[in-house]
């Protein structure tokens, strides 16, 4: 057993962990800038230094193995001074334009400067004059604000295996950017936004869509509709002081109405629709000997990644559009007709946990009859900003329900927000399609949980289906390579680019740790446990949509509006 004494308090450590992990478990706050949970330490920033008795210099706790009997002092004059100097040096070439920064009041650099009592500019260096990169529809880079901690580079390489960005140059000219220092739009970036979550400063942020949306709301001719994704209602609360895992769907709906949206819909409805199409497609592929395994296609970052790296597996991707796009398409066709509105006068907004959804909405094929399915996408963070800007007090609102005709959702659709949720929802419906009977127990434990790779076998009558769920594109790459090499025991694979799924998406509140992500998932599973309608095929609004408009899953109208195709491409095309 390992026991250490930190600031005269005894803390238990675990074999093989770092001193930082032990100290944090003991409730001691150690500031870090380059540390990334779950990845190897890089030891680049030295913010985490502490004094260990018997060691000469300060030691970086993030890279120092904990040992029994250590005596540690974390906030001595020497340690805090060292940290303060580091921050002061980082600020030497920082633009200091906090007032205008998207991360103002949500910035680790700012917090640490305040915490360490930085009150004046002690060092002054040449400012970085690199201009912002606004080439991507999803991610904005502002290299001038970068402190070169390297977290984005490591997330992009180690978690996503994309490596769109890296350090360029050296010495005082070092910066982070894509090959040839070009715009992100011509790099291999898949817009997942995980780098934004990692960045301690405002050097990385989402491309904002405020203006278009507010103008559309103010335009009396425009009928402005909004949908919100399953993962948003369980995270938005965090930005208003709630602890992780509180579902604010009703309050959010009320707030969206106050903002002036004409109708508020739940994307979970479209998730149910996706399941009807996708489960049908899976059954068809299995019974008609079409390419297997089938990969899900609702994560645009994964689709982009597959188009760049797995051209040979594109026939294995489900042709379903994502729920966001499906709902947009239905709003601008059936709904428009039903309400007697010209689709050109409809403006559809999607509130998403995701940055890649912004690019997806503009992708070729995501339109029909000359109108885009979705006109603008807001992240969870942006929605919180608008709510504040318009002085809406979330807590004082009464919960409201989503609008008809897409108000109903099953809790299976809601599960889309967590890694494994699409799979679980699809299994529930595919089971009925194959056997004609509901599953005895709807819970599919094998696909739940935070692991990056989950596998299981599911019985549907006489049929046994091998399923796999991966999140984090590095895990997806590994599995796709196995499939490429001939692995045959899996028929259905769910991929989400963000570790843990959309609840940890690139558009979500910044600063969540693994416990927070778990709490968000738990919130979704509770909603499902207590739900009345727990399968997509039992969603009456979806049934009605098929009766009145679409006909049957995979039918003619479905193909026209709800399905798409994929094209192999090189980075940047």
């Amino acid at each position, binding site marked *: 057993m390992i026991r250490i004494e930190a600031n005269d308090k005894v803390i238990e450590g675990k074999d093989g962990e770092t001193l930082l992990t032990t100290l944090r478990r003991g409730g001691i706050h150690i500031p870090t800038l380059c540390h990334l949970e779950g990845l190897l330490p890089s030891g680049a920033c030295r913010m985490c230094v502490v004094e260990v008795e018997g060691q000469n210099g300060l030691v970086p706790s993030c890279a120092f193995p904990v040992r029994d009997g250590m005596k540690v002092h974390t906030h001595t004059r020497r340690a805090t001074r060292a940290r303060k100097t580091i921050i002061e040096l980082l600020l030497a070439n920082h633009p200091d334009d906090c007032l205008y920064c998207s991360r103002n009041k949500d910035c680790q650099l700012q917090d640490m400067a305040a915490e360490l009592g930085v009150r004046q500019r002690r060092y002054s260096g040449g400012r970085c004059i690199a201009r912002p990169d606004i080439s991507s529809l999803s991610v904005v880079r502002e290299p001038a604000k970068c402190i070169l901690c390297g977290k984005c580079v490591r997330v992009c390489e180690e978690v996503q295996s*994309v490596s769109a960005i890296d350090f*360029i140059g050296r010495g005082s000219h070092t910066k982070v950017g*894509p*090959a040839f220092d070009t715009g992100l739009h011509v790099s291999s970036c898949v817009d997942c936004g995980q780098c934004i979550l990692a960045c301690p400063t405002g050097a990385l942020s989402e491309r904002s869509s405020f203006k278009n949306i507010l103008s559309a709301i103010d335009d009396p001719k425009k009928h402005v509709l909004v949908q919100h994704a399953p993962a948003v209602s369980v995270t938005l609360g965090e930005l208003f002081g709630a602890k992780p895992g509180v579902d604010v769907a009703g309050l959010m709906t009320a707030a969206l109405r106050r903002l002036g949206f004409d109708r508020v819909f739940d994307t979970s409805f479209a998730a149910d629709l996706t399941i009807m199409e996708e489960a049908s497609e899976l059954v068809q592929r299995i019974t008609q000997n079409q390419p297997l395994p089938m990969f899900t296609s609702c994560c645009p970052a994964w689709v982009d990644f597959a188009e760049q790296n797995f051209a040979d597996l594109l026939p294995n991707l489900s042709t379903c559009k994502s729920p966001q796009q499906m709902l947009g398409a239905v709003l601008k066709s059936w709904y428009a007709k039903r309400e007697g509105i010209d689709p050109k006068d409809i403006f559809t907004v999607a509130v998403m946990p995701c940055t890649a959804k912004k690019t997806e909405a503009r992708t070729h094929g995501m339109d029909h009859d000359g109108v885009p399915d979705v006109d603008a996408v807001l992240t969870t963070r942006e929605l919180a900003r608008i709510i504040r800007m318009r002085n809406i007090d979330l807590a004082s609102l009464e919960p409201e329900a989503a609008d008809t005709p897409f108000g109903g959702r099953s809790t299976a659709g809601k599960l889309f927000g967590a890694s494994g949720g699409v799979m679980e929802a699809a299994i529930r419906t595919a089971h009925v399609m194959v056997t004609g009977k509901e599953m005895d127990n709807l819970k599919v434990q094998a696909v739940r949980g935070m692991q990056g790779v989950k596998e299981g076998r599911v019985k549907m009558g006489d049929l046994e289906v091998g399923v796999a769920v991966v999140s984090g594109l590095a895990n997806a790459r590994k599995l796709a390579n196995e499939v490429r090499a001939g692995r045959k025991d899996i028929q259905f694979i769910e991929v989400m680019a963000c570790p843990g799924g959309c609840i940890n998406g690139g558009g979500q509140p910044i600063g969540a740790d693994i416990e927070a992500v778990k709490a968000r998932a738990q919130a979704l599973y509770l909603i499902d446990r207590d739900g009345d309608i727990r399968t997509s095929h039992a969603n009456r609004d979806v049934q009605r949509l098929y009766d009145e408009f679409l006909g049957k899953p995979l039918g003619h109208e479905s193909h026209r509006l709800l399905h798409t195709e994929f094209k192999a491409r090189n980075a940047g095309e």
Partner: protein
Amino acid sequence: MSAVEQVVAQYPGAARDSLIPILQAVQEVDGYLSREAVSVIARHLQLAPSKVYGVATFYNQFRFQPKGRFHVQVCRGTACHVKGSAAVLESLKRTLKLEPGQTARDGSFSLEVVACIGACGLAPVLSVNGEIHAGVAPDKVNGILGVYRKRVAD
């Protein structure tokens, strides 16, 4: 097969530790590292282009634009430094409106910093397409370049 592909073909099964020699060999053939070259090398070594570019930009010896008609190299070796080559470089940058590693839009001039030309007795030294100019003072730079500028105009 392109020239670059021929070069990388000489390193079958190479891993990332061969990156620098390959970059050098490609620059030897092409005169610089083009975008195409970087992606060919990246594919060959199964690295991301951003990694290859990142490594290459760490070293002064690699350039990413083709050389200009007149390639100006300024020595920043120890002897030249002592004799004031920093000021010469500043003067060159100002006169040519180029940073080291860059090539003028019209392709007339390119600028490069080199570690030592091996003519320390003549410091500070600059070379234009291999022609050595010795004992260069910052205020002489414009005159030296003028000769080449005339040739560009002709």
